[in-house]
C-alpha cells in the first residue's frame, strides 16, 4: 500500500518543518519536530500563542502538507497520499474535537454525530449515535440544533461525533478553551474516559497546564521548535 511502512506507532513525526512564503521572505512556523505516539497513548502539545501548536496538529491530522519532513499516521506517510486518500484515512482512523466545537449548525445533535459513520456508509449509524449521546449525557437532547445547546453540551456532542467512527487517534484542539471550569472538567473527564475505553490515542493542544498534566507526555513548543518533551508516565 502506498505510504505504508512497518511501524508500531500510530503517529510518527519526523524532521517536520513548515514555512509560509509571504512575498517578502518566508516565515518558519515549525522547525524540525520529531516524536511518535504509540496506540492508545496520550500526549499534550503546549506552548504560548503563536508557537505553532495548531499548525502541528493540522499537519499531524493531514489537514495540510509540511514543507519538509513527514508524518506517518496509522503507518501511512501522509504527504504521499492524495487529498482524497487523506480524507478517507481521516474518516477511518481520526477523530477531531475543536475549541469552538464546529458542529454543523443545520444538523441536529444526533445528525451531527452520525456524519462520520454515514460518510463511511456504515449501517446502524443512528443507533450508535444515540448510544454515544446517551453516554455523554445528552440522551434527551438528540433533536436539538447546536444553537439550542449550551457550550458544554455542544462540546459533548462533538466528543460523541469524534468517537463514533472508533478512531485510532483523536486530535483535540483546546477542547476546553471555550468552557467554564466546571463544564470543562466534566467534558475532559468524558474525553479521557472514552479514550481509555476505546484505546484511542489522544493528541491534545492546550494552554491548560492542569489538562496537560493528565496526558502521558507533554510536548512543549516555543517559536516553532520543540523545547522540551516531558514523559509524565513510563
Amino acid at each position, binding site marked *: 500500500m502506498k505510504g505504508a511502512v512497518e511501524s508500531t506507532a500510530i503517529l510518527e513525526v519526523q524532521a517536520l518543518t513548515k514555512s509560509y512564503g509571504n512575498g517578502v521572505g518566508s516565515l518558519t512556523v515549525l522547525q524540525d519536530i520529531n516524536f511518535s505516539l504509540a496506540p492508545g497513548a496520550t500526549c499534550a502539545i503546549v506552548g504560548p500563542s503563536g508557537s505553532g501548536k495548531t499548525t502541528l496538529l493540522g499537519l499531524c491530522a493531514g489537514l495540510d502538507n509540511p514543507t519538509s519532513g513527514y508524518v506517518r499516521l496509522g503507518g501511512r506517510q501522509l504527504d504521499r497520499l492524495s487529498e482524497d486518500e487523506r480524507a478517507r484515512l481521516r*474518516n477511518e482512523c481520526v477523530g477531531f474535537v475543536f475549541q469552538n466545537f464546529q458542529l454543523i449548525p443545520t444538523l441536529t445533535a444526533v445528525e451531527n454525530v452520525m456524519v462520520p459513520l454515514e460518510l463511511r456508509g456504515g449501517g446502524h449509524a443512528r443507533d450508535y449515535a444515540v448510544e454515544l449521546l446517551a453516554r455523554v449525557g445528552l440522551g434527551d437532547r438528540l433533536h436539538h440544533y447546536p444553537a439550542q445547546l449550551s457550550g458544554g453540551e455542544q462540546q459533548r456532542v462533538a466528543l460523541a461525533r469524534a468517537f463514533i467512527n472508533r478512531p485510532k487517534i483523536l486530535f483535540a484542539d483546546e477542547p476546553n478553551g471555550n468552557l467554564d471550569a466546571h463544564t470543562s472538567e466534566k467534558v475532559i473527564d468524558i474525553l479521557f474516559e472514552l479514550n481509555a475505553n476505546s484505546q484511542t490515542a489522544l493528541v491534545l493542544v492546550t494552554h491548560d497546564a492542569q489538562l496537560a498534566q493528565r496526558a502521558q507526555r507533554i510536548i512543549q513548543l516555543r517559536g516553532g521548535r520543540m523545547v522540551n518533551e516531558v514523559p509524565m508516565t513510563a
Partner: protein
Amino acid sequence: MNANAPSSRSPVWAFLQHFFSAWTWRMAWRDSRSSRRHLLLFSTSIMLGIGALVAVSSLGRNLQQHIDDQARSLVGADLVVNSRRPFTPEMNDFFKSFGGEQSFVVNFSSMLGFENGQARLVQVRAIEGGFPFYGQLETEPASAAQSFRTGGGALVEDSLLAQYNVQVGDTVRIGGLTTRVAGRLLAVPGETVAFATFAPRVYIPLDDLRRSNLIQPGSLVRFRMYFRFGPEVNVKELVEQVGPQLEADRLSYDTVEERQKDLGRAMSNLYQYLSLTGFVALLLGGVGVASAINVHIREKLNTVAVLRCLGCNVQQSFAIYLAQGLALGAIGTVAGALLGLGIQAVLPRVVADFVPFEVQFAVSWPDVFKAMGIGFTICLLFALLPLLPVRRVSPLAAIRASFDLAEAPRRDYAVWLVYVLLGAGIVAFSISQARRWEFGLSFAGALAAVFALLALCARVLMWLVRRYLPSTLPYVWRQGLSNLYRPNNRTVLMLVSLGLGTFLILTLYLSQQLLLAQLVQSEKENQANAILFDIQIDQKKPVVELLDSLKLPVLREAPVVSMRLASVKGRSVESILNDERRTMPGWVLRREYRSTYRDHLSSTEERITGDWPPKAETKKDVVPISVEEGIARDLGLRLGDELVFDVQGVPMTAMVASVRKVDWRRLEPNFFIVFPTKALEGAPAFYIMSTRVASSEESARMQRELLRKFPNVSTVDLTLILNTLNQILDKAAFVIRFMALFSVGTGLLVLIGTVLTSRFQRVRESILLRTLGATEAQVQRILFIEYLSLGVLAGLVGALLAVLANWGLAKFVFQVPYVLLGTPVLVALGAVGALTVVIGLMANRGVCRHPPLEILRAEV
C-alpha cells in the same frame, strides 16, 4: 456501499457515484434547513425568464401552425396580380386565359366624410366579384359582408365608426360618392389591426366607384385581380408559365406560397424578438442565482471544512452543494414552466394587433420542454460559478479562522470552462433565434458589453467610495456608503440587474419619444402641417382661392407626374432585373416615380453635386434632371449618366445634372426626381399643396369645404399622422413593455432576494450598532443611504447607457438629429431609486425589533 469508498475509476465516475448516493441528497436536504426560504426565493429569479421562454415557445409554434393551416385565407385567393395602372383589355384577356374565378379590386386613398361634416383619409377598396375567396370579411351585422356587394353601401372600419360616433345606416361621403354605412368592418383576413390603424379600410362595390367620379388621371390607385382555381390547377406551374409575361407587363403577383413565406418571416421576427427578450430576463435571473449561491456557499465554508475534517472528500462535499444548486434550478424551472403555461393564454392577446389572424392557442409540449431545458442549463451554468470553489475549501479552515476561498481562482480551469460554456450557450441561443450568425453574435456581444459595462461601473464605484469617501461626512453617511464595498456587499449584482432593467425600459421609451419628437418639431417651427393631394390641373386655381378664403396660406405647391424607369445607363430595366448579379435593389427599378418639375431647390433640399437649375447644356432631346442622393446611390448614378423614363407611355431621355439631399422628415412635397420646367408640362399630372392650419378646428373646416367642393382632393394633416403614429407606437410599445416586464420583474425579484439574504447580516450589524449606542433612527438611516445610493447609481448607469443607445439609434438607425430628453431620464432615476429604497427598507423591517441578546448569544 461505502459512501467514501475508494474508487479506481475516473474522477468523473467517482463524482457521479457520490452525486447519486442517497447520503449526498440527505445531507443536501439537511444542510439547506436554515436557508430554504431564501434559496426558494432566489429560485424564483429564473422563474420569470423561463416563464417567458416557455410562453413564447408555444406561441411561435402556434403562429407557424396557423400560417401553414390557414395560408390561403391570408391571401384570400390562390393568386393575386397587382398593378399601379389600370389593366388593359389585353391584360384582362390574358387573365381570362388563366381560368378559375376572378375578382377585381381597386384600392385608393380618399377622404371619408361624415354627416357631422368631419372627414378622415381612408383606404377605399372597391370590389367586384367574390373576394375574399378564402376566409371572410368579418362584419357586423355578419350578413353585411355579402349584402353590400349587391345592395350597395360601404363597410367601414369599426374603429372609425366608434371614433366619429357613426352608426350603421348613416350616410357617408367617399369623395364625390354619397352612400350609407352597410356594416362595421371588424377584420379582414391576412391584415393586422396595426395595419388597419395606419390606414382605416372602407369597402364599397366596384359599381359604386364606376358611378362616381372618384378616380382622376394621376390618382394614387392600385388595381388587383384575385384568382381562385379549382383543385385541378397547379398554381405553382401556372405562375411559372405566366410569370414572365406578367413581369414584362410590370405586373407584380403574389401566391399563397410566397405570402406564407413572407408572413412566416414576419412572424418569426416577432417570435425572435419575444424570445430574445425572455432570454435577457433568464440571464438576469441566472446572475441572481449565481449571487444567491455565492452568498449561500460563503455561509457554508465552515461546514464544508468540518465535513472535510470528518473525512468527506472533495467530490462528496461538492456533490452536496451541487445537489442543492440543481434542486434550486429544478424548482425555478418547474415554477417558470407553470407560469409560462399561464402566460401563454395571455400572450396571443398581447401580440394580437401584430398578427393578421386570431391565434389558436395550443400548448406545444416539445417546445415547452425545450425551453425548460434551455432555462435549466443556463441556470446550472450560472450556479456552477460559485459552486466550483467549494472544491478548494481546505479542512484547515475548521481550525484556522483566516481562510480565503478566493485563493488561486485563476488556475481553476473548471471555472474557465464554465465561462466558455456559458458564452457559447448564449451565442448559440442568439444565433438559433436570429437565424443569422452576424445578428446572433452582435446580440450576444451587445449583451456582454452591457453586462460588462454595468459590472465595471459597480467596481469603479466601489473603488471610488473606498478610496475617496470623505471622513468628514456624518457617521450614518459613511456607514451607509461603506456598506457598498464591505464584504458580502451586493453592489455588483444590484447594479447589473437594476441597471439592465432601467436600460431596457428607458431605451424603448426614449426611442419612441425620439420618433414622435421629429414630427412634433415641425409642428412647432411654423412649417407646413397639412398636405392636399390629387388636385387636378383645372382645380388648382379654385383650390388656392378656397384656401385664400379660409385665410390659409399655400406654403408650397408642386405638380406631380407619374413615370417609370425604362433604362438606366443604356441598359433596359428588364435586363437589369433579370441579371442575377445585380446589386441594385429591385424596388428602385420597379417603382413608380412621382416626379415634379421646377427650376429651383426647395427649402428641404440641399445641393450635393451638379447645379440646379442646370447650367451645362445637354444634347437635344435629353432632359437634365436632379436626383435624390439615396436613389442616385441605389441606381449607381453619377453626373452625366443617362436614364430613360416611361412617362405614361411616352419615353423621355434624361441626364443626371444634379444630386440633392432631401430632408424627408419635413411634411412637405418631396421628390426623388426633379425635372426642369417646360419638360413635362404636357404630361397628365395632378397638384400637391402644403399649408398650415392653426388648429384642429381649422383643419376640420378646411377638410369639410374641400370635400364639398373638390371631393377627389385628399388631405393629410400632421395631427392625423401624429395620432396614427402614436397609436401604432403605443401598440408596439405595449408588446415591448410587456416583455420588458419580465426583465424588470426579475430585477425586482433579485433585488428582494438580495436584500433578504443579506438581512441576517444586517440584523447582526444593526444589533451590534444598537448595543454600542446607535438609535433606531440612525440604523434606519444607514440602511436608507445604502439602498438609495445603490438605486440611484443603478438608475444612473442604466439611464446613461440608455441615452447612449438612444443616441446611437438616432444617428445610425433612424438617422434623425438626436434630442436629449431630460424628463424621462430624471423620472427613471427617481423611480429606480425610490423603488430600491422602498423594497430595501421593507425587506429589512423589524431589524431593530430583535433584542440584542438574541443575536449576541446565538450564532444562527
